[in-house]
């Protein structure tokens, strides 16, 4: 019984994914390309960086990286908090 329920759930989920994949746009042709064009055109003259990904991560979206660094700091703090020696 539960095997048939699992199979039905798998088929439904796979069907949704397959239909979604069939409805995708062709690779490399987004619906709106303005942002991509901006980054590829202006990351060299504006940021003077050859690596556009680094230009986005550290310049255009520096706030995001600041949040990532904060997440890492919080994770380290949590590990240090859990794994310390408890002195009763």
């Amino acid at each position, binding site marked *: 019984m539960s095997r048939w329920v699992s199979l039905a759930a798998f088929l439904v989920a796979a069907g949704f994914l397959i239909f979604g994949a069939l409805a995708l746009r062709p690779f490399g042709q987004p619906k709106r390309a303005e942002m991509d064009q901006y980054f590829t055109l202006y990351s*060299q*003259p*504006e*940021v*003077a*960086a*050859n*690596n556009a*990904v*680094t*230009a986005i*991560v*550290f*310049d255009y979206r*520096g*706030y995001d*990286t*600041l949040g*990532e*660094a904060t997440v*890492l*700091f919080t*994770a*380290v703090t949590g*590990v*240090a908090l859990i*794994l*310390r*020696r408890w002195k009763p």
Partner: protein
Amino acid sequence: MTVVVRTVARVLFPVALAFGGYVIMHGHLTPGGGFQGGAVAASALALVLVAFSPARLKGKKGLFSALESLGGVAFVVLGFLGLGLTFFANVLAGAGGLFGQPVPAGPNPGELNTAGTLPLMNWAVGFKVLAGLGAVVLLFALFGGEDDR
């Protein structure tokens, strides 16, 4: 660990550390950056912790803490540098000074002395990730398991 593991770790530790530094240093030219290079360098620390006893690095917790704080503060200070325009504005790019060389448009191999504040931020984040992940691995090695030690 056995002598084989320890010998391999002795050979691979400087190589992994240097490769992490390379990935951080060329973050604005090649794939990778501060996070990735810091993780590579932290894997070198993990190698040492696995091969040798974690007591060898026990006294380095203060160093890790200081490095992590230093990296975070340097990153925020570099963000504040551009406050005349906006937070995180790249004031050093193309200005001619430190890392201020302009880049020709189009595909080119790239110069190390470019991209303004990006390499400095890469170093800050790299040290931060190295110290943070190193501290996590060290804490796991010191206090994690009680079975085989």
